[in-house]
């Protein structure tokens, strides 16, 4: 069976199992190396392999403590389901990535980050404990400070199969966000806007990667705060805890040429202009604020049959401005067009394998074609030259050599895996490619 991630590239021939309980999972583990798979929202081959194990039957919520906001749930429960169950009671995930269609297990394995990384840290900050099935089928309970916890958070499922976890949710009065939009006509202005808004809970920028010259790096910086009941007016006041949007889906693969440098340039100019007109404040509901792309089901089909890839790096604070400028310059020189591009300030991160570090992260989508595939190694090199590193949840093509150069932590991880027998039991197409 062909497997792929959200980017639908690469497509890998492999076995796919869907066990229904722990005993069935344990039996599969005895058959050879496998990799757990959740919602398949990692972009590349993180959850693909010779044997991928779909964990979505493990989808029960187990306990909730309404005093502390601690939720215990099985790994296949999604953030969307958590919001559906607990937002009506005034709780929201403390950290959420740009889609609600991620599983709890996946969020831990990638140690995902959200728009509040600079102020509150990554998903792992709010994980109290994890239960992991190890190479011998035994289940271990681990918590912050334990070796296994450190290797599991951001460990891409390579330290074992995540079965259950306890996470802390955040109290919210409403499901609305007070958004402030700051139009930034170029990269320096965007970086200034981030630097002066460090106290905002949420911050993220949409960045135009096609704009050149004086407008290079023009962005819309969006800040957000959870709105209190007193902030609501009109429609929001009549529905303080709005339900999720139910939008249309992309019914088929668009032809690959739909997203080309010209259409992207036109879209970006329009988007910036519309955003700049809305500069200032306003109320946005949680689904539109955190998950704008979820509104269009199967949006990955807009890139056509060949799929797309995402490049996401972080450049440390010391060299960020020059690093980002060089990356943006290389993209605009190449003539490749990134339709979705996001810039975000990260705070400091203290964990063993997690992607973030203090600095700026840039995430860019490219349709699969010769031009963008040729551009990627160039962007890898620029990132490496500026002391940056890469997000494995987005990666589908990096070389083992690049990973070794940019992120020596993974070498310790690979050694530990060999010594403890993990590498013989847990492997993905990505771990094989990257020599983990």
């Amino acid at each position, binding site marked *: 069976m062909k497997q792929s991630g959200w980017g639908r590239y690469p497509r890998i021939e492999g076995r796919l199992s869907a066990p229904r309980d722990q005993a069935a999972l344990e039996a599969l583990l005895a058959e050879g190396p496998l990799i757990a798979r959740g919602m398949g929202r990692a972009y590349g081959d993180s959850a693909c392999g010779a044997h991928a194990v779909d964990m979505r039957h493990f989808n*029960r919520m187990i306990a909730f403590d309404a005093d502390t906001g601690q939720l215990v749930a099985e790994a296949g429960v999604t953030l969307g389901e958590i919001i559906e169950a607990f937002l009506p009671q005034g709780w929201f995930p403390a950290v959420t990535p740009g889609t609600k269609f991620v599983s709890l297990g996946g969020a831990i394995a990638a140690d995902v980050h959200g728009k509040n990384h600079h102020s509150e840290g990554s998903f792992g900050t709010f994980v109290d404990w994890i239960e992991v099935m190890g190479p011998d089928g035994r289940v271990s309970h681990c918590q912050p400070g334990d070796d296994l916890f450190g290797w599991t958070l951001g460990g891409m499922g390579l330290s074992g199969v995540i079965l259950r976890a306890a996470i802390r949710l955040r109290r919210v009065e409403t499901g609305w966000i007070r958004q402030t939009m700051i139009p930034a006509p170029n990269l320096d202005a965007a970086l200034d806007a981030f630097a002066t808004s460090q106290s905002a809970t949420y911050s993220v920028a949409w960045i135009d990667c096609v704009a050149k010259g004086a407008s290079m790096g023009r962005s819309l910086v969006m800040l957000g705060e959870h709105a209190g009941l007193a902030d609501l007016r009109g429609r929001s006041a009549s529905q303080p805890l709005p339900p999720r949007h139910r939008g249309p889906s992309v019914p088929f693969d668009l032809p690959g040429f739909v997203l080309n440098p010209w259409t992207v340039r036109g879209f970006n100019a329009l988007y910036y202009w519309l955003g700049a007109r809305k500069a200032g404040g306003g109320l946005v509901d949680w689904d539109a604020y955190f998950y704008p792309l979820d509104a269009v089901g199967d949006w990955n089909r807009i890139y056509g049959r060949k799929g797309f890839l995402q490049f996401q790096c972080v450049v440390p604070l010391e060299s960020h401005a020059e690093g980002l400028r060089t990356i943006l310059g290389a993209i605009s020189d190449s003539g490749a067009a990134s339709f979705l591009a996001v810039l975000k300030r990260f705070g400091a991160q203290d964990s063993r394998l997690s992607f973030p570090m203090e600095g700026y992260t840039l995430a860019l989508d490219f349709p699969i074609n010769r031009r963008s595939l040729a551009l990627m190694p160039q962007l890898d090199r620029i990132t490496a030259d500026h002391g940056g590193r890469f997000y494995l949840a987005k990666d589908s093509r990096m070389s083992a050599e690049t990973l070794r150069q940019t992120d020596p932590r993974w070498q310790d991880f690979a050694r530990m895996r060999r010594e403890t027998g993990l590498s013989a039991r847990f492997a993905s197409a990505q771990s094989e490619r990257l020599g983990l």
Partner: protein
Amino acid sequence: MSGAVLILGARSDIARACAHRYARDGFGVMLAARGAADLEPDAQDLRLRHRVAVSCHDFDVLDTAGFAGFLDSLPALPDVVICAVGAMGDQAQSQRDPAAAAQVLRANFEGPALILGLLAERFEAAGRGVIVGISSVAGDRGRASNYVYGAAKAGFTAFLSGLRNRLARGPVRVITVKPGFVATRMTEGLPLNPRLTAQPAEVAEAIRAADLRGRDVIYVRRIWRLVMAIIRALPEFLFKKTRL
């Protein structure tokens, strides 16, 4: 919107999806199956997600003598009952072994019909109630590949039809569901056409919609109505030569 739904055969994928669908609308849930203690994780999941009362009850569809006692033991008479009990069995084994065939007939026809018949009495006396029987397209025409199961489902479909006819002038309603292929534990590993195959949540949604709109007989994916109309319309001299 509230009340209580009784789910018979609560361990199946369709049953679990139905429990969530009704709980989402505020229904309390009674989960009934053999070995009810194992249902507790599902019950807890339903409570956490939907904040409704959920209870678990031992129920064996082959223990017809115990049915009245089972119904008496429930915390209350439910407003809706969904019978998702069923077991496909193995056709080849059913052909060889009468005991195995009897088991399939009893689990898919005798047990479901008798328990719903008893509930119909109680619903009639209470002046309310919705009976949902999950039958099968396999009961629309007997085929070589699964006619023992199909015959039991045909019996169940006929029973539901008669019950509906009998109760039509009163407030109690009867809904027959013929889901077609569904991606469940029962069909895992079978090479099913994805366009003909519904997800359990789709079946649950269709059942809830049929309940709210007062429908009598539903196929889940509309294409099945057409497929089965064609299969039923084939003259026997042709049908007997097909391999379906």
